[in-house]
Structure formats: structure tokens, C-alpha cells
């Protein structure tokens, strides 16, 4: 029985394929889809490459700066030149050097980074760390034309989430209604196969063609684009392909569902475009507004105010201390005592920087918690629209999401502490100079990414398939009536 159904389905599909081959509109839709995918691969790759170049320039600048300091300290240690008169130019001064080298901390792109290249641009590709409070380096940004960031990138996520559904709807909006209007529906009804099988075959072809073109183009394109730089990301590609099939199934099932309502083709087209608008534009727009209203972005100025207040408080403490000393020992003694040597000044600077770091860290932790809450709400709201869910899952696969950047920030936090320990706690606070050998022992940045990867792609695929099944079952029941 099952074999018979399959055979009928195959016959229906083959017949539809013959019809579609003669329809220029089908070729036009497929050509446009293919062109969009190729352009998206090119755009995505360009963004990823530009970010990699920006990181390389940063690393180059860091290497040059380090080499200059090494040359200078070698000359000082060998007695060829005298030490600079100002501490901030001295390559032996640990406090100064801790803020001068600026080691590059980068989050390397994953092989599928080009899929959601635009999302990655919300964050800088790398930062150059300083020993000072984190606000001094965490918010330095890459140069971008803000109008481009606002418009977004024509990347694969855009094509798969926005454009693919439109192509699917363009080919399926009149799946049943078109036959009714042409008068060929009754011919199908007269066939020995069930209507569900006949129209199932048609749906399979009309949806299968664009999905097939998409899968081939996306997989081949990514394989080509990542050929030189990465091993073929097979697992990620399988997940991406599954997501595309599941997401496309939802839209195909929706088109079938609307056809099952037995309206005319024009109304079907309008209803489906309306559904696209609601799922792709309106629900995301409302979700954004809702999550921003519920958990507004933290006022980042608080971080700088917290670290700046450390300097003012330290000044006040010093002034109060001097005043007390003056009261106790008289004006002349206070004037002599007020003259601090360079070592004491350095210790004062270190104390201010340490307090500023602690205060900024406390504010940053509070801010991060608020951003995380907003992200959690946004992740929940994503289930309201298949477009949002698909986009979130694809951003996760591309490694350009907030979750991975948070891991990077955690690694930065660890590295910041290591850097401060090396320069400040172990040397500057003990008034120990840096030596040439120390330059070979500088801490290095690394991100230890946690496996397993996000569960979102799998969850999204299951949700889409369930929704597709529900819609399709109504379609099958409707045709059976």
C-alpha cells in the first residue's frame, strides 16, 4: 500500500516537474534565488575577510610596539642608552608597559561565520587589552559606516530567512487554487490517486526545486569559500541544511494550508504575503520593542563614571590626609611631608587604577546581567516567529551570536586578571622593574570555547517540522473532503 502511494506520488511529481520546466516564471524565480545566494556568499565572505584583515593589522601594530620596547630595553640593559626621564616612556616600568603594549585579543571566526556575517558586526573583531579598568578597551569599536550597519548585510541569513520563503510562496501560492481557476482540478480529482497524493507530489516539486537549489548552492558555496582556510565544517553544514529544510517545510505547509482554505489565487497571494510580513517583519519589530522596553540596554556611561570616580575619591582622600597631618604637625612639617617621591606616586597610581578596575567590574557585571536578561527574553520571543527562530539558530551556527561573544568576554576577563597580575601585582606594586627576559614571558590570550554547541538549531528544526506537520495535516484533510 505504501509502495503504491509512493509510486503515485512519484508520478504526480514527475508530471509537475514536466509542467514546471516549461514555465519561464519558475526559471526566473530559481535564477533570482541562485543569484541572491551567490551574492550573499560573496558579501558574507567579504565581511569576514575585512574583519580578519583588521585583526591582522592590530596584531602587526602590537608586534611592532613590542619589538620597539624590546630594542629599547636591550639598549638600556647593555648601557648603550640612558633610561628615559619619564616613567611612561621607560620600557622597564611595569605599570607603563602594562598599558602600552595592548595585546590583541581576538575571537576567531568559525568556518560558518560568513552565514551571518552581518550579526557579527555588532561586536568588534578584536580588542587591544590594557591593564587599566576594562572600560578603557572593552568598548573600542571597529570603523564602519553606521548607515551600512543599520541597513544590514546581504548575507546568507538574510537570503534564507527573508528571500527563500518569498520564492517558495511565489511557486506555491496557487498550488490548488490555480488548478481550480484553470478548470484542471476536476481532472486531478478523476485520477485514481488520492488528491492528497497528487497535490503532495506537486508541493514536493514546487518546494523541492528551490530548496534543492538552495541546499546545493549553500553547501557548495560554503565549501568553496572555506576551502583554503578551514577544514570542511561538515557537522555545521548538516545542521544548516536541516534547518533550511525544516524552515522551508514550514512555509510550504503554510502555503498548502492557505490553499486548503479554498479562496482564489489573488487572495491566497495576499494572505501569504501578509503572513510573511507578520512573521518576518512585524513580530520581530514588536519583539524588539518589547524586549527593549522590558530590559532596556544598560546605560554604559555608568562604567566610565564609576572608574573616573576612583580618581576623584583618591584625590579627596589624599587632600583629607594632608589636612589631618597639617592639623597635627603644623604647616611646615606638612609641606615637607607632602612632597612624595616617584615610588610613592607610582603606588598611588596603582591604587587608583585598582579601585577603578574593581568599580568598573562591578558595574559591568550588573550591566551584563541586564543584557543577558534581555537576550533570554529575546530568545523566548523568537519562538513567536519562525523567521526569528531560524535567524537566531543560524546566527548561533555562524558563531556570531551573543552567547559566543559572552564566552569571549569571560576569556578577556581572565586574561585581564593575568595581565594585571603579571605587570601590576607581581612587579609594579613591588616596585620591581621589567627585564628583557620578562618580555618573553608575557601572558598570551586564548579562548577555550565550551562544547557542546548551541541546541537552538536542533530545537528550531523540530519546532518548524511540527508546525509544518500541523498545517500539512489540515491540508491533507481538506483535500480529502
Amino acid at each position, binding site marked *: 500500500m505504501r509502495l503504491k502511494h509512493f509510486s503515485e506520488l512519484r508520478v504526480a511529481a514527475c508530471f509537475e516537474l514536466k509542467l514546471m520546466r516549461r514555465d519561464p516564471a519558475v526559471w526566473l524565480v530559481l535564477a533570482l534565488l541562485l543569484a541572491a545566494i551567490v551574492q550573499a556568499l560573496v558579501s558574507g565572505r567579504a565581511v569576514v575577510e*575585512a574583519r580578519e584583515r583588521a585583526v591582522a593589522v592590530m596584531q602587526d601594530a602590537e608586534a611592532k610596539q613590542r619589538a620597539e620596547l624590546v630594542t629599547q630595553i636591550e639598549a638600556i640593559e647593555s648601557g648603550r642608552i640612558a633610561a628615559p626621564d619619564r616613567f611612561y616612556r621607560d620600557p622597564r616600568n611595569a605599570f607603563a608597559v602594562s598599558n602600552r603594549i595592548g595585546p590583541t585579543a581576538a575571537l576567531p571566526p568559525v568556518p560558518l561565520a560568513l552565514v551571518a556575517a552581518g550579526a557579527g558586526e*555588532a561586536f568588534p573583531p578584536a580588542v587591544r587589552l590594557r591593564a587599566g579598568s576594562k572600560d578603557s578597551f572593552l568598548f573600542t569599536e571597529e570603523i564602519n559606516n553606521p*548607515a551600512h550597519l543599520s541597513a*544590514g548585510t546581504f548575507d546568507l541569513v538574510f537570503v534564507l530567512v527573508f528571500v527563500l520563503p518569498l520564492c517558495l510562496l511565489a511557486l506555491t501560492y496557487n498550488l490548488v487554487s490555480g488548478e481550480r481557476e484553470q478548470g484542471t482540478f476536476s481532472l486531478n480529482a478523476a485520477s485514481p490517486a488520492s488528491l492528497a497524493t497528487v497535490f503532495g507530489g506537486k508541493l514536493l516539486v514546487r518546494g523541492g526545486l528551490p530548496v534543492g537549489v538552495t541546499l546545493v548552492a549553500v553547501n557548495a558555496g560554503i565549501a568553496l569559500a572555506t576551502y583554503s582556510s578551514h577544514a570542511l565544517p561538515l557537522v555545521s553544514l548538516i545542521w544548516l541544511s536541516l534547518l533550511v529544510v525544516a524552515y522551508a517545510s514550514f512555509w510550504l505547509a503554510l502555503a498548502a494550508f492557505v490553499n486548503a482554505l479554498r479562496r482564489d489565487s489573488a487572495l491566497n497571494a495576499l494572505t501569504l504575503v501578509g503572513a510573511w510580513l507578520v512573521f518576518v517583519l512585524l513580530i520581530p519589530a514588536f519583539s524588539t520593542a518589547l524586549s527593549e*522596553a522590558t530590559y532596556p540596554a544598560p546605560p554604559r556611561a555608568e562604567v566610565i563614571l564609576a572608574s573616573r570616580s576612583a580618581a576623584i575619591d583618591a584625590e579627596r582622600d589624599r587632600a583629607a590626609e594632608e589636612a589631618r597631618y597639617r592639623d597635627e604637625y603644623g604647616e611646615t612639617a606638612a609641606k615637607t611631608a607632602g612632597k612624595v617621591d616617584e615610588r610613592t606616586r607610582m603606588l598611588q597610581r596603582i591604587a587608583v587604577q585598582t579601585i577603578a578596575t574593581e568599580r568598573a567590574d562591578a558595574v559591568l557585571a550588573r550591566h551584563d546581567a541586564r543584557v543577558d536578561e534581555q537576550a533570554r527574553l529575546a530568545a523566548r520571543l523568537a519562538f513567536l516567529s519562525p523567521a526569528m527562530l531560524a535567524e537566531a539558530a543560524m546566527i548561533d551556527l555562524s558563531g556570531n551570536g551573543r552567547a559566543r561573544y559572552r564566552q569571549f568576554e569571560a576569556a578577556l576577563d581572565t586574561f585581564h586578571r593575568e595581565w594585571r597580575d603579571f605587570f601590576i601585582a607581581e612587579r609594579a606594586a613591588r616596585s620591581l622593574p621589567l627585564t628583557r627576559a620578562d618580555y618573553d614571558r608575557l601572558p598570551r590570550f586564548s579562548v577555550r570555547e565550551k562544547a557542546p554547541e548551541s541546541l537552538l538549531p536542533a530545537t528550531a528544526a523540530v519546532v518548524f517540522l511540527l508546525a509544518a506537520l500541523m498545517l500539512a495535516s489540515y491540508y491533507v484533510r481538506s483535500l480529502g473532503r
Partner: protein
Amino acid sequence: MQTGEEVAPAPTLARPAASPALTVARREWRELVRDSRLRLLAVVSLLLLLAALIAGFTQAQRLDRERSAAMLADRSLWDGQGAKNPHAAAHFGQYAFKPVGVLALADPGVDAHVGAAIWLEAHKQNEAQFRPARDSGLPGRAGNGLSLAFILQALLSLLAILLAFAGFSGERERGTLRQVLALGVRPRDLLAGKAMAISGALFILLLPAAIGVFAGIYTLDLEHHSGVSDHGQSVLRLGALAVAYALYLAGFVALALAVSARAKSSRAALVILLAFWLANTFLAPRLSSDWVRSFAPLPSAQQFRDAIAADKRQLFGHDESHPAFVAFKARVLAEYGVSRIEDLPVSFRGLSLREDDHAGYRIFDRHHAALQAAIDRQDALRALPGALLPSLAVQPVSMALAGTDSRHQYHFTTQAEGHRRLIQEIVSDDLIRNARNGGPDYQAPPALFASIPSFAYQHPSIGEVLTGDARNLAALALWAFGCTLFALRSVARLRAV
């Protein structure tokens, strides 16, 4: 929205004395009002506009509250400085916060992608920090935020298409077009009447939104914290915004009627217009951005900073062994006719700081102006097809008038830099006049720091904005004019027989 299935009422041209175009407009208006699906669409659009207005209002109010609080807190830190060396105070610096423009509630523009705070410290022109987009829960989310500009650009243009796509083709399918033309109604009157009715419907929808923004200008009163409050300028900007969007939407109405007059069926007209709407609203902005980026790329942040640093190596900063410092010292001593710094009547340290600052200003100006010129070039290239794909022209105009485009950001950073220079000049002058050469470290009284004002941003005048965006406004006018011409030529082909 008229589909082929509907039975249209017979045309009634009851008042021949009135202008034929007005009579047609009245008839079209009655049909629009009678269509329950259009009523639903209108209600949905209105609700969306109001929701966008409320979202914009709340967001602008919150940002203004936060930035005002930050400004006050930073001022209190600045005033909290005790007696100290003026140059040390310049190193501590002030922060400049970009005030929220009241029209940001209509179009938030690029505000999410630019920093809103700049540290004004000695020796350096810093970049703006804290891009709100970075703190968004889901970066790169599908679709755009809910803003009036988004609704006007994306949804109202779609509504214009839905109202007009069957304007002629629907009548042709029902057979009423021939009857109307046979009555002697000129096609151009028919076109004018239909365009008037549809534009009237769009105008009625937009009126509450415009009134909402107008009320927002007077109720929000955002800018009093920065000392800038010019409602007149905001109202003028709102008026210009209304004109820009009127041109944008008028073009869509004319285009939809033109396509409707030429298309074989309403369905064909709808498919063509929807394809154009998609290309204009979603594909063009992204594609043009990507192409422009690869055609005219910007430097990376590190390259930009390295170029400034390379030029700044010619300056002496605090390096007293720098050849430029030695030369400057010789020049100053010669000017005052003395042989030792200690014999100078003014502070040499103050003079050298001022000299170094002035040389630095020229370097910063050159590099920042070149970067902005590169961004402007990208924007101009991006908007080049604006007369054919009007979203590329209306977006920059809308952002510029709302005060949320990259030119306004540059205007803010330039003014902030001006304020930084004011601080430098005041503290250097104080050093020059009061510090003693060879004496103990000079400390200025807190009154000096209290006398230095906080940064107060002045928005550019509407004249500057319109001049800067003249090309895009011309593209919008050309779009509307071209579509009208296309519609006139399209309906001229209509014949009764």
C-alpha cells in the same frame, strides 16, 4: 483592494458641473471606504503607526533621562576636583554626551550603531564610545525595529500599492473602465481622481502620526539639559520630513496606477508591484551597502589610529629631547630675548603644551575630516540610484531631518572636539599666566575648573541639513515626477473602444 470577483457599482457621475477629476476622486473614495478589507488594513496601519510612536517616545525619553543623569554625574566629578595642576585636570577631562534629538522618536536612524559618549582628554581626540546595538539581546535580528520611519518606508508604501494596483486593471476586468471612458472622462482626470482618493486615504492615516510627533516636540522637551531647545527648528524639520515622505509615497501611488493601467490583469500588476516593493525596501539597501563597501572601503580602526600616531610622532608631546621641542624652546627664548627658561615672564610649560595642542588639532582635523569624507562618499554612492529605488533616497533624507544620520554624528563629534579644545586652551592659558618656571608644581584653584562649562550640543540648522541632502531630495522629487509622468503616459493609452 479590488479583486476581479467583486461586483462594482455602476459609475455615477452625478455632478457634471464639478471638476471631472474631483468627481472621480469622490467615487473612488466611496469605494475605498466601503471595502471592509481596506478598512481593516487602514486600522492595522494606524495601530502600527501609533505603536511605533509610543515605542519611539518611550525610547527617546529613557535615553534622554540616562544621558542627562550621566552629564550631571560627570559634571559633579569634574567639579569635585580639588586644587590641582591644570594640565592634570585636562588629562582627567570631561565626557561629552550626545543629547537625544526629539525627532529621533520618528526615525532612530543610525543612533544604535554610533557611540553617544566621548572622553575629552588632553592630547587626544577620542572616538565615540558605547554603541547601543552591541547591547541588543539578539544582534542582527530579522526585520527592523519598530519605528515610524520603518512603517512609513516599508509598510505605507505597500499600502499605497495595495490601494492602487487594481485602480485601472480592476475596472478593466469588470468592464467599467470602458464605460467611464465612453462617458467622455479624460484618462488623465481618471488618473488624477484615483490618485487624489488614494493619497487622501494615506494622508488621513498619516495625520495622527504627524500630530503625534508634533505633540512629541512640545511634550518631550528633551534638550533642555543640553541648553538647546528650539521647537521651531524641530517643527520645520518635521514639515520637511512630511514633504519627503509625501514625495516618496506619491511616487508609489503614481507607479502603482501606471502599472495597473498597463498590466494585462490585476494579478500581473500586483506581482510586478510587489516585486518592485521587495527590491526597493529590502534588497536595495543591503545590496547597495555591500557593493559600496567593497568599491570604496574604509580604513580599519587600527589603520586610522596608526596614521594619526605616525603624524603625531612629529610633535613633541611631553618629550623634551624631541627635535621639535628643542627648536620650539630656542624660538621662544629668542622671541622673549632671554637665554634661560627661568627668565621667561610666562610659564614655558604652558606655552609648550599650547604649541603641541595646536599642532595636534591640525592632525586630528585632517584625519577625521578624511574619514568622514570617505563615509560621505560611500553614502553618496549608495544613494546614487535613489530616483529609481526611492528607499535609497528617502532613508538618508529621513535620518538627516531626524538628526540621526552619520553627518549629525560627525557634527556632534566635531562640536565635542571643539569643547575639548576650549578646555585645553583655558588650562594652558592659566598655566602660562600663573605657573612659575622652575618653581614648585603649580596648582590651580577649583574655581578655575568650575569656570569651564560643560559640553552643550547645538544641532545644525535645517538649512545645513537640506543643503547637505539636496541631492537626495532632488532624487525623491525626480522619483515622484518620473512616476507621475509614467502614469500620465500609461493612462494616455487607454481608449474607450
